[in-house]
């Protein structure tokens, strides 16, 4: 990363530090002088936006922990204490609970952007894999975070999801008991979820650094999908992209504030304002909106497949829906990165996007017909996109002519650059 630095320490202190730990030139090379394609559109700002939300989650989370009590008899009341008696506690909590949604919203756009522009392709496979790992860590963290207020949906969401492990043959029951720290979701479960919910965000922060490192080796992808060929194709990260990203972050904050200040409970569930009660099961147990597509896929398998019972089949399908993202770079056989030059892929990309939206909506519906049939239909589309469309399309699709360079594309020298 420091390779791009033209940094010359000016004052004595900086010189002293630079000889011993060249952290200033590292930062300068990565976030000041870093040559960045000059044609990045606003879809590229969502990485920075996601990082901003991560920082918001860390800060508000650390403050909330100062007042929260991880105990099954006290947790719900401690959250109400934060909401009522802690100065601006309501603000911290609504920022944190809505921040989780904002984080996923930004990251989903970031992932779809990577898919549309082929950012996972050679030589950025590791950056992509680390990104999928980040997404997986986010899912775990968000799931455990939703358990902490210890409302009805906390308890029953935790019960449904941890029970999935009982589908594992032979050792399933033992694993579930081990996860719970008892024979049902209870105080030990709450405590370990709290511990991990505090730990994982720092793991995420570390993997984010690796993610940035990995894509800085190859440099950013860009809407044309052609690597920069000369200085004409790039601009230094600062001030060009620092300003553009900052502008995008502030616009995103407007959306964030819309929810925090005016619709703070819109993205949550009313049931979670009822204290957890193991004796009463809510009518509909649903996860937060950002996990709904995977929840739908979990419920798609309603039949036994040979020796695999339907429950285990559902767990495998749900796990597979995330796991398949890890190998995406090797499923896509096309050498052309950007969908701008792949008209047929572009159609399938939007079909895939539509598929995930429909799965999300269906995931919120009760497990009954006709929803189940539609979930199965869209689950097939989801996996077909990776296992059939992407491998085959690269072999049979005729891409449009790709411009020779970013600068050519920007200046319109290519026949029909986007």
């Amino acid at each position, binding site marked *: 990363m420091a390779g791009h630095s033209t940094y010359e320490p000016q004052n004595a202190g900086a010189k002293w530090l630079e000889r011993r730990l060249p952290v200033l030139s590292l930062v300068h090379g990565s976030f000041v002088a870093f040559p960045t394609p*000059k*044609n990045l559109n606003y879809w590229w700002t969502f990485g920075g936006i996601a990082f901003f939300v991560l920082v918001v989650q860390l800060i508000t989370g650390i403050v909330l922990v100062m007042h929260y009590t991880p105990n099954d008899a006290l947790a719900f*009341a401690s959250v*109400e204490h934060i*909401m*009522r008696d802690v100065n601006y506690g*309501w*603000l911290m909590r*609504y920022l944190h609970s809505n921040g989780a949604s904002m984080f996923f919203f930004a990251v989903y756009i970031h992932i779809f952007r990577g898919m549309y522009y082929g950012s996972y392709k050679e030589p950025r496979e590791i950056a992509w894999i680390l990104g999928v790992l980040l997404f997986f860590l986010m899912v775990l963290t968000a799931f455990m975070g939703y358990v902490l207020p210890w409302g009805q949906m906390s308890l029953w969401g935790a019960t449904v999801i941890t029970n999935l492990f009982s589908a594992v043959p032979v050792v399933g029951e033992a694993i579930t008991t081990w996860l719970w720290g008892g024979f049902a979701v209870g105080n030990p479960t709450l405590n370990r979820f709290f511990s991990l919910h505090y730990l994982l965000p720092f793991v995420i922060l570390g993997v984010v650094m690796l993610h940035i490192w990995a894509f800085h080796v190859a440099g950013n992808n860009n809407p044309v999908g052609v690597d920069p060929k000369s200085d004409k194709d790039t*601009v230094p990260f600062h*001030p*060009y992209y620092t*300003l*553009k990203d*900052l*502008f995008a972050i*502030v*616009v995103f*904050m*407007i959306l964030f*504030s*819309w929810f*925090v*200040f*005016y*619709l*703070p*409970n*819109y993205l949550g569930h*009313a*049931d979670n*304002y*009822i204290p957890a009660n193991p004796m009463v099961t809510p*009518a509909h147990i649903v996860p937060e909106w950002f996990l709904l597509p995977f929840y739908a896929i979990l419920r798609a398998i309603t039949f036994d497949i040979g020796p695999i019972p339907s429950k285990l089949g559902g767990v495998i399908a749900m796990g597979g829906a995330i796991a398949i993202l890890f190998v995406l770079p090797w499923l896509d056989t096309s050498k052309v990165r950007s969908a701008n030059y792949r*008209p*047929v892929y572009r*159609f399938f990309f*939007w*079909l895939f996007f*539509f598929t995930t939206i*429909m799965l999300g*909506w*269906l995931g919120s*519906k*009760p497990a009954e017909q*006709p*929803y189940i049939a*539609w979930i199965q*239909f869209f689950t097939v589309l989801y996996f077909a996109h990776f296992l059939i469309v992407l491998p085959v399309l690269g072999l049979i699709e005729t891409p449009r002519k790709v411009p020779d360079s970013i*600068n050519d594309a*920007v*200046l319109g020298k290519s026949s029909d650059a986007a």
Partner: protein
Amino acid sequence: MKNLMFKSARALAVVAGLAVAGPALAAGEGPHVEKQPWSFAGPFGQFDKAQLQRGFQVYQEVCSACHGLSYVAFRNLAEEGGPGFSVDEVKALAAEYSIEDGPDSEGEMFERDGKPFDKFPSPFPNEQAARASNNGAYPPDLSLMAKARAALRGFPWFVLDVATQYQENGPDYLYGLLTGYHEAPEGVEVPEGQYYNPGFISGSTLAMAPPLSDELVEYSDGSPMTVDQYARDVSAFLMWTAEPHLESRKRIGFGVMAFLILFASLLYFTKRKIWRDVDH
């Protein structure tokens, strides 16, 4: 080929959308909840202090016989953004209640007059006692009730709600429930100890007898003494108990929004100036 694909995709989208949304709209999960006008709705919404005071009166004279308000302290009634009782009024009100405290230096629990810092004492010592007095049913605590109930909105309303800032489904539901008691229609079996109410969220009958009737609570400010008005007032009061910082949240939100929009515009022009000489 491309054209055909887009057309078929659009057709697929429409068919799938209709097929999935149709039954959801028809099935009508949960009661139909009518939107009510609330003073605290919208970006500039604030509580109507007189209404909160009346709603508190309804809670105190009617609901509190069975329902607790255990997250609310007497002092909250005098705090900013609430019903606006004076500190002295709250002191006098708290003193009407008897609170169990202790143990004292002899190791005995004792009763004393309530103080502003005390929470509202619950009508029953525990769930079992509450069930024993209520035909086996458990009257839930009302502190958070206005946020703990929401009838399903369904497509497309749940999307439009983001733009219209609709967050009053809780009080709308409570109002609908309190005014929803009717004679059971022909053919509907109402079990012993249950009351017919199509506004109830889980079933068409519930164990709570109709709590309100006209002239039940004596208002001193000339407001109509009707079930409709009582239901409105107590629903608004419960929105406040569930969200006591609603007013400052919306007030701060407006300042935040105004600042962010101004800041974003300045950043936009700064960014434009920086990028002026770059083709991109």
